[in-house]
Every structure is written in C-alpha cells, then in structure tokens.
C-alpha cells in the first residue's frame, strides 16, 4: 500500500505539469487581440487604449515558451500574478474564494450522504410499493431539476415569500459587521466555523440560516444517484442468506436492516459519495450564483470566459492536485472496505 501511494505521489507533478501545459498551450492558440480581451472585457475599456501598445506591454507578442517560462518562474516564487477577472491578486482571490466553496462543501457533504443513504434504504425496504415510488420520484425530480430552478424556487418560498428565514448571501448585514470587526478573529474565513471558534452564536445562527438553502439544493440534485446505488445495493444484500438467518433468529426488522444489511450495502455508496464531495470543493457555479456566494466555481467560470490566464492556471493547478488526491483517497478506501482489493 505504501509503495502504491508513493508511486502515485511521484506521478503527481508530471500529471499536473502536463495539464498546465495543455491549458496554457490552448490559450496561446488564440490571437494576440483575443488574448488582449482579458484586459478589455467591455467596450468601455477600449477608451483611450492602443491595443498594440498594450499587447507589447503585457508581453503577449513573446513566444509561448518565454511566456510559459515566465509564468512557471513566478509560480515557483509563489507569485500567481494579477487576476483580471477577480480584479485582485490571484493569490488573494484564491484565498478569498476557496473557504467559501469549502464551507459550502462541508455543509453539503453530510446531507448529501445521509439523505442519499436514508432515501435509498427507504426505497429498498419498501421495494416496489408506494413509498418506494414516491421516494424515487422525489429523487429523480431533483436529479432532473436544474439547480438554478431549484435554487430560485426555494428562495422564492423561504426568502421572498411570507417567511424570510433563509436569505441569499453568506451573512446578514449585522453579522457581517461583527465578522469584520476587530474583535472577531477570522481563523478559517468559513463563517460557521469561525463563529464557533469565536463563540459567537449570533453569527453562527445567521451563517447557518444562509447556508441551509444552498446546501439543500446541492444535496437534492445529488440524492437521486446515491438513492439508486444505495437502493440496488441494499436490495441485493437483503436477499443474502445471512439476512435471512438474522430474520430467522427473530431479530426485529429495524435491527436486521440497520445492523446487518445496510452496513454491508454501504461500500459502493461511500465510494461515489467520496468523489462527489471532492468535486464539491471545486465550487459550483450555478448554486454559488443563485445564492450569491462568491466562491471558486464562479471565479473559475469568469476567468475562463475572459481567458484570464493567471487565474485559470491556478485553478487548473488546484484542480489537478485535488483530483489526484481524491482518486487516491478513493483507491485507498476501496482497499480498506473490500479486503479483496490490493495494490501491491
């Protein structure tokens, strides 16, 4: 196992360098003027601008290797340049947006996994009866419902309707004032966690109120997949002999399902859920946009639309590392859950 992990780790830098080169190279297929659009994102920015002078100033006319070399040498010095899409230094943009997406991912992970497992169990236990159908219908609606529709519907009900329990954004006005005051230490820049660490329950409740709807949307659109995997896996397990034995022993149905069948049925679910959660950290463009969370997903999309090379490259770098580690984690989890899998 250790040697497997070591081998995977050794490959990591090459994989990432390859991905970086491909992305960088693709941007360079664009003409100089197209790449200038990074700096001129609207007609207003054309005013009093000499495009040729600008291209020269930003070094866009240099050969690709010069530019890639320049970028790499900057990165080695931990200088990621200026993010034209976020209008701030790229490093700062990343440290600003990452905790936002991470917090949302953390809060969505639990409902995704628990909700998926619960719905799957419910469907399997009530195999082919009304509850099974309703649960599956409920989940499949979520799967088919675009997250911007689900998000806006929830906002209309829980924010724009009679109740305004769950507003968009990350914090209300007063909570923001507290979070930004000198007394409040921002350890992680994740509001819920910082609120706990600061012992400020007003901020905590406020932050949770803001996170509930996006977390629900992110979970609801993913439940269908987990439900199906859980349902089929549990159905299979319930037909196993040892389950029959447990029933024959006179165990209560709840104990049979919860203790004997469900645990064994969990293996495939955990694998899928693990990858889901890794992807959540990437940020989710639509959910972030609807709920006005300024996270990684939105930034990456803006950067891509604007050919904002420095932001894109950092995002690619981050994604490469994240996915390599996520895959590795899943591989390791396989081996842990299923003794038949070995990597040596």
């Amino acid at each position: 196992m250790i040697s497997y992990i070591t081998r995977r780790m050794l490959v990591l830098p090459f994989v990432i360098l390859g991905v970086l080169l491909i992305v960088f190279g693709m941007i360079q297929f664009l003409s100089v003027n197209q790449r200038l659009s990074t700096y001129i994102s609207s007609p207003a920015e054309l005013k009093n601008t000499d495009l040729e002078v600008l291209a020269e100033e930003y070094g866009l006319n240099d050969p690709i290797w010069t530019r890639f070399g320049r970028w790499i040498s900057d990165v080695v010095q931990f200088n990621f340049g200026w993010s034209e899409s976020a209008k701030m230094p790229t490093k700062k943009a990343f440290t600003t947006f990452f905790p936002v997406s991470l917090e949302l991912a953390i809060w969505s992970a639990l409902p995704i996994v628990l909700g998926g497992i619960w719905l799957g169990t419910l469907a399997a236990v009530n195999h082919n009866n009304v509850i099974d159908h309703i649960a599956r219908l409920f989940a499949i609606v979520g799967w088919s419902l675009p997250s911007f529709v689900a998000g806006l519907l929830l906002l209309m009900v829980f924010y724009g309707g009679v109740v305004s329990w769950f507003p968009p954004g990350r914090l209300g006005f007063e909570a923001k004032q507290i979070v930004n005051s000198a007394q409040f230490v921002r350890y992680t820049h994740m509001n819920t966690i910082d609120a706990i660490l600061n012992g400020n329950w007003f901020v905590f409740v406020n932050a949770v109120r803001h996170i509930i709807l996006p977390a629900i949307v992110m979970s609801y659109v993913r439940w269908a997949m987990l439900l199906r995997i859980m349902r089929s896996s549990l159905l299979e397990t319930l037909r196993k002999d040892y389950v029959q034995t447990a029933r024959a022993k006179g165990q209560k149905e709840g104990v049979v399902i919860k203790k004997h069948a469900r645990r064994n049925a969990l293996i495939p679910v955990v694998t899928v859920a693990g990858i889901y959660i890794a992807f959540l950290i990437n940020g989710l463009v639509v959910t972030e946009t609807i709920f006005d969370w300024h996270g990684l997903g939105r930034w990456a999309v803006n950067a891509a639309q604007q050919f904002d090379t420095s932001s894109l490259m950092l995002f690619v770098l981050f994604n490469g590392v994240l996915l390599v580690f996520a895959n590795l984690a899943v591989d390791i989890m396989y081996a842990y859950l299923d003794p038949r899998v070995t990597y040596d």
Partner: protein
Amino acid sequence: MNYRWKNGLIFALSLTLIVSLVVVGLGQDEPEIQNPNTLTAVATGTANTLDPSYAYDTASGNIITNVYENLIRYPYGVVDGDEKKPGDYSVSKYEPMLASKVPSQENGLIRKTPDGGIIYEFPIREGVTFHNGNELTPEDVEYSLERTMIQDRSGGPSWMLLEPLTGYGSITSLVTTVAGVEEYSETTSADRTAAFKAFIDPAVEVKGQSVILKLNDPYPPLMNILAHSSYWSSVMDKQWVAEQGGWPGTAETWPEYHNPGGGSAAEESPLYDKANGTGPFKLDRWEPGQEAVFSRYEDYWREPAELESFVLQKTQEWGTRRLSLVNGEADIVYMPLQYIDQVQGAKGVTVQTGLPTIQMNPAAFFTQDVKTENNEYVGSGSWGDGIPSNFFNDVKVRKAFNYAFQYDAFIEQVLQGYGYKTNGPVPKNMQPYYNDELEMYSYDLDKAEELLKEAHDGELWAKGFEFTILYNSGNESRKTAADIFEANIEKLNDKFEINVRSVDWSTYLDMMVQEKTPLFLIGWIADFPDPHNFVTPFMASDGTFSGWQGQGMKELATEKYDPLIEEAMATVDEQERKEIYYELQRLAKEDAVDVWLPQAQGIRVMRNWVQNAPFNPMYSDSWSYVYPISKGYE
C-alpha cells in the same frame, strides 16, 4: 408501528411540510422599512480600484463618487421613491462643491491671459476636512490633479486632464516630445523632470486660497472633466497619499509613480484598497467583487447625510437581486431592461422610466474596405457568394441599410418600449448640441430597394451578395438588430444573403480591430457630457470605433470630419460650437457612416421608501450618489 411504516410516515410528513410552506410562501405581506438607516444598493459590476487617478470603470466610480469630492458638481434633480419624474438636473450648469464659487467669465474667475491662454480660478472652500481629520488645502487640489496627470496608467482616464492642461494626450508623449526622442524609454530622468516643470507644474498652481488652472488653448469641456462624477478629478489628501507610499508631489520623483502595474495590476497603486476623501461617506470596508460598506462622515462640511450607512453589494443573478428588492432587504437594484415586467406593479417597488440617458449604445458601424483575406465573414470576397472589399464604400449601400431597419420594432422588442429614436453621433439629451432639425432615417424598404439597384453601378443588384454580421454571444440586443437587418435586406432580392453569427467577445474584438467585420455593433457611454466625447470615437480618423471602419472611412474623416472636430474645440462659444456639431451630424447622416439605433431610456428600480434619490445622467446607473437619500414614508 413497524419500521417500514414509521419511516414512510416521516417521509410523508416532511413532504407535506415542504408543500405547505410553498403554499404559504405564495402569500403577501405588509412592507415595513428594513434597516431604516442603511441604504443597500445591489448591482453587478466589480470595482477595479479605489484610486481616483486610476479608476475608469463605473463600478469603481460608484464607490469613489461617494467618498471623494470634486471642485464643482452638476445640479441633480431629487426624486422621491413614488415619483416618476427626473427632477431638475443639468449637465452643462455647475454648482460649487470644494470650490466656493463656480468660475465664469461674468464673475471674472475665467479670464484670458495676454498670451492667448485661458485661466480658470477656483477659490477653495475653507473648513473642509478629510475623513482622517486633515484639513483641505489648495495644495491638495493642485496635487490631486497633477497626480492624475503623472500617473497616466495605460488605458486609464488621465488623458482627460492632460489634453486640456498640457496639450498632450499622454504624459509619455509629452516627455518624448520635450526630449526630442522616439521612445519614452530613451528619455533621461533629467528630461522627465524638465517636462514636469515645463508642462505639468505650471498648468495647476496655488495662489492664496485659490487654485489656478492655466490652459494654453481653449478646451470647452474642461468644466465637465472637473465636475463630480469625474473620478479622475477627485480631490485627495496630499499628505495622506504620500504616507500610504504614494507620490510625494515632487518633480524629480514622478516617473516612479507613473503607470503603476502597467495599467493592468491595479493593486500596484498604493490607493488600490484605501480611500480618504472629503465626501459625505467614509469607506469602512471594501471586498472586491463583493461589497463596499460606508458610514456617514459626521464632520462633513455640509449637513451630514441622512443615512447612517450605505452598502453597495454585488449580486450577479437578477433573480436573486429581484428577491432582495421584493423582500425589502435591497433598496435599489440594477435591473436589465428585459426584466421590467417582473417588477412593474410589485408591491412597495417603484420603477422610474423615461430618465434621460447620454449614450450611443449601440450603433451599427459599416466597415469600408473591409479586409477580405482569410475572412470567412465576407464569403468569397466578390459578388454573388460574398462581398467585395469596397461593399460599404458606396454611400447608396450604407443609406439602403439605414432604410432597411425597423426602428420601431427594435424599440418594442429589445427596449420593451422604453426607447427613443435618435440621430447620431451626438446623443439626443446633450442639448443644445443635438441637431433636431435633421430628419431621421426611417424604415422604408422601397427606398432601400431603389438605392441598392443603383449601387455599385447595378452590379450589386444583378449578382447579389452574402456576408455575415457578428455579435458577441449573450448580447441579445445586438443579435436582434442583426436579425432585423437580415430579414429586411433578404426580403429585397433572392440573391441577397446575410448570416448572423455569435462569437465570444474576444473574437468579436479581434475581428473588429482587424477590420474584418463588414458591419459591427458596439456602443459608447459618455466620459463627460460634451459632444467632443462622441464625435471623436465615432467620426475622427483615429477614433476608437471609426478607426476600425476601414480605409474608406479614414479618407472621409480626414477630409471632412477631422477639421470640423478640431474647429469645434478651438472655441468656447456655445453658439459657434453648436453650429459645427450640427454640421457634423448632418454629414454623418448624409454620408450614412453608421446606423444610429434607438437608445434605451434610463430606468431605475427602488423601494418606494427611498426618498430624495438624486438624478443626473452623469452619475453612473443614475443613482450612484447617495448623499441626499433618506428612507421613510411621507
């Protein structure tokens, strides 16, 4: 109860709860003023910087306008949330702000010098303090204007002060000319210091409690360029800027503070994320791309603002912005015109329409001598299955396109009825310079047919043509305009074919710059409300847009338009200028250089508890100055 049914019940109960909440949620409630002492405005722009000498985008301007002040300001009309009229405003009259008097020839503060120059004297108000407590001095005003001139970042706003005050469009061209070399990099530090002492320093001087601007030649829009809403002329605190690591104000050091970050990395300027002005609001916090929070400045030289604080927030998604408005959490939101039906008649929401705008956004530009090599948008490059390079060089073709546009349909479909027809390039609301004596082109396919039959000696009509109109993806109004051209031109002759295709913005920009788009659509919004700011990009031989309209346009401009554009700037006499601009507009129509598309009215959407919202078309988004606003019901 057995396990199966217990879980089923929980599930059914939660479904019922959700459904009932949905039903309850569709009800209505009584509007009650939320956060009565805070104004929350929600828009979509990301501010680039807080440095007044660097900013050139409206999102930055929205912040700077509330924190910093200028020598003079435009009168604004005040509108209450439940009124519809824009109130009395002007973009050609001024009121004192940090200057205690508005200079004019009558009060002797604008006067000619013996050597033919012009002097503007601004007596500086006493007893004004910056947010850090420092007192405003005339030296601060001198420093601020000079700072904008020496900073002159690439693509920035500094040309607006450099042009009138030094006669040069950029500080680098000034220095290279003074030094007599080709490149700025060839100049020595002695050259640079000398250029500063010869041109920048004498242009703005302090005399007693006054600041004197000295122009060698008249520059009619100077007052516009200095007025509040021109962020580049904001007054900064010299001592404070130097303390932040900014330019100390000396002739020898200025090159170190020139073009910070090469014009693209705004953080290189020390004022990137700090602000200290004399305005009614102090900036408490700025998170780029998220929000800016302001609080009332209690020692303000006028009455302190009614509101205690002001939040300017960015929310990209219209649906979310709309909900914040309906919910009452947002007081003012930015709304794209196409959504107007969603807020018209909403409870507690006021929609003001018909506000005057000063823009030409968009217009349709013809490229004469369009480049045909490697250009898929002109077909084969010859008649029949393409267009020859000189397709639009024939004025008859250009006129025919002007007749083949359904202006009313554009107003209905794109502008939802909230638009007006106009002749360009001087905007309709820029009185007295807009030529309303000209008859506008109107939709007339018979005339278009007649013209196209005669054009290019009949070859066009006999052989037909095909070309592509591009628009940048996502810009639906440009697409609709292109579709209207397509539908009408194709109606005239079976051999005519126009394709409409979307490309991303970067390709669009590239194609325009390379003069490969036979017909392109783009728009201009005023830097300052003077016709010069419009005739230059639209008609000058080196204009931003006219410069992309090909060799044919260049020749027309050099011969006919450039001399008039210059002539209009050589006098400050309103009547004389008016006649020249009238003539330019007549020529624009006669030569049919562009198609002047209908323009959108200004619209603003706010809660009806917003009182005294100022209106002036030069304030971006038409509400961005918050000082007079209060919240409440009358």
